């Protein structure tokens, strides 16, 4: 068991840090420090391309697909340096963290060659078509249909909560391809171009006042026959494997974002004197400890994954970070007091900390609610009986 990095790894860190610093203090100084997922999308597309050109986009991928063949330790280091440099959230995070690894795992050689380099070069942005109005926690209850017509798949139905669809070129969709099938059976995993007449995107205004999520309608949308991952009917298997990729190295970059948020809370508490309040001090210390433990939980998870093992902490990670962040939002408001509840001007657009308070209510819902996470932990890790299914429509 060892936490430190080798000299060679530290040299890699210095190289990454130097490159990031030069870019973010040079041509990309305007995107440094952005934390919102929806701000300045055009410049952030440029940033994706710049990362791709320089080989820093998908460092863990094989070189032949635009990656850098980085070791696990190097991926960890890059994720940390990326966030430390104040680089913005990746506009294509769904392509890099979800679509890419899934194509790498399930794609044919042709699919890998077609899609992966375009993701690594920042040319094609992806979004995810999983949830539906009737398929939330019960994700397998998919009603969107797909069928073969000549040499294309035709898709009909509706997805919801498609984050960043408004900036995306491609969407991956789970759709029911076997008529009359139910639940996880008879689903297919399709790769569908967004820019076509059969796809309509309508933004959802969320409780923050922003619109990051969308409803996506498929009305006779089309994609080529070859754009299916895995066999027809195997979509659930692919979809579930993809959720496993959410626990990858990117969690460390996400944590650096959390670091910035906690630092902002600490700064606010020092500025208004709440840092002297013993109750607030306890809560800030708890948040600090929780954040550190997230890092070491992630390192355990990654080390185990490298050895081909699923770490127990992998199953507990989602509820851990989501709950941590929701608690941080509440702490932020208790630190700010009423000053956090008003904003200058007419627009309903709150600054980072009140926005965190609101946004973090989504964290404990999307990607599997806390309640679903507890079921998963109880059933898969602790071996307790599965929840019975009802038969209401």
């Amino acid at each position: 068991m060892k936490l430190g990095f080798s000299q060679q790894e530290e040299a890699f860190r210095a190289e990454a840090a130097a490159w990031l610093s030069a870019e973010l203090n040079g041509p990309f100084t305007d995107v440094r420090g952005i934390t919102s997922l929806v701000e300045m999308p055009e410049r952030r597309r440029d940033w994706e391309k710049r990362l791709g050109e320089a080989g820093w986009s998908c460092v863990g991928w094989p070189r032949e697909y635009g990656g850098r063949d980085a070791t696990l330790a190097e991926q960890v280091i890059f994720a940390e340096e990326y966030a430390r440099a104040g680089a913005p959230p990746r506009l294509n995070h769904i392509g890099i963290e979800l679509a890419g690894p899934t194509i790498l795992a399930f794609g044919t050689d042709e699919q890998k060659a077609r899609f992966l380099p375009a993701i690594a070069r920042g040319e094609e942005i992806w979004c995810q078509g999983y949830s539906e109005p009737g398929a939330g926690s019960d994700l397998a209850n998919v009603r969107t249909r797909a069928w073969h017509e000549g040499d294309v798949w035709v898709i009909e139905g509706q997805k919801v909560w498609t984050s960043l669809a408004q900036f995306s070129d491609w969407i991956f969709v789970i759709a029911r391809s076997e008529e009359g099938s139910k639940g996880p059976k008879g689903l297919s995993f399709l790769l569908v171009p967004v820019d076509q007449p059969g796809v309509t995107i309508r933004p959802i205004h969320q409780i923050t006042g922003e619109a990051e999520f969308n409803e996506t309608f498929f009305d006779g949308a089309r994609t080529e026959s070859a754009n299916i991952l895995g066999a027809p009917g195997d979509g659930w298997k692919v979809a579930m494997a993809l959720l496993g990729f959410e626990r990858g190295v990117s969690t460390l970059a996400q944590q650096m974002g959390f670091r910035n948020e906690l630092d902002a809370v600490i700064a606010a508490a020092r500025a208004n004197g709440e840092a002297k309040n013993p109750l607030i001090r306890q809560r800030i210390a708890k948040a600090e400890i929780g954040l550190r433990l997230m890092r070491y939980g992630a390192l355990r998870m990654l080390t185990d994954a490298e050895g081909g093992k699923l770490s127990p902490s992998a199953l507990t990670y989602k509820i851990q970070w989501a709950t941590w962040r929701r608690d941080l939002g509440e702490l932020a408001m208790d630190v700010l007091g009423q000053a956090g509840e008003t904003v200058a001007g007419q627009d309903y657009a709150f600054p980072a900390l009140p926005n965190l308070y609101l946004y973090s209510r989504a964290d404990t819902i999307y990607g599997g609610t806390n309640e679903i996470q507890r079921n998963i932990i109880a059933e898969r890790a602790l071996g307790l009986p599965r929840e019975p299914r009802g038969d209401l429509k």
Partner: protein
Amino acid sequence: MHFAFTDEQAMIAETAKAFFAANATSERTRAAMARTGIDDALWQGFAGDLGLAGVAIPEDQGGVGLGMVELAILAEEAGRHVATLPLLASIGLAIPATLAGGRTDQTARLLPSLASGELVASFAQAAPGTTWNDRTLTGAALHVPHGASAGLFIVAVGSDAFLVKRSAPGLSVAPLTSLDQTRPYARLDFGGVAAEPLADPAAAIATAHRTGALVIAADALGGAQACLDRTVAYAKERIQFGRTIGSFQAIKHRLADMMVAIEQARSAVYWAACAIEEGSDEAQFAVHAAKAFACDTYSHAAGEMIQLHGGIGFTWEHDAHLYFKRARSNASLLGTPDWHREQVAQRIGLDEAA
């Protein structure tokens, strides 16, 4: 960076797991609780036969020459069975204090017998008002873990530290009936007791506190895991309303929450162990985090164990109360979770000007 056990560490964990499962049985634990809180045969097996009391003592001083990760592994496995051993007193506190602060002749004299387990030692924090004059101590220490079984004490008096022998004239040792009978306290009264100063008392005290807190945190991790494992097993067999209680979401979710906390406690304990071992700048921070988080996790898990077992969990016969009481004692020893969090608050700059 490799944040998982090496093969050798996994082997040590397996050895310790098998040893405690076979020997630290409920029956033997209860027999020890009725006496001194030490199962002498268990201690002989652990320290004498397996040679594990000297796990973190260098080989040339009679030890095994391993480090903090291995020590944490042993404490975790002992904690899983609320084992009645002077693991905290001797291995977690007295040995590190001696190693860090003893003169060469002191370490040469003491470490071999501490490593073999023939000598049990404990660490005593002297009460305010205790004084050292003329090479003798006058005063008291109120809560000395496994104090009635120790042949030697490291006594911390303010920023000084001394060696005091059990046999020294003027020392009286009173065993105290303690909430946690697996690690009972004793009160020491010093009536002009001969005390030998350690060469580097600051290092002795700091190292004892740091290693002791790590050992307690690891013990808490093992204990909390045992609370979860045993409660899950019970929830799978106990039937009410025609179904196992583990099929109720109200129960499943509480067990899941225990696991979420325990996995974080595990990260905390081994982070702290590695940080100390690697001499990281974060070591002290990590120890505060681990002690606070693991002790809270254990207190919660042990309380849940009683609640989810229902009436049987409230009986003397069931082991739940052994965990519940050890968890309480762990939380109080060497700083409560709140105290450790306050140390964290100071370390992250809450007191700096805005």
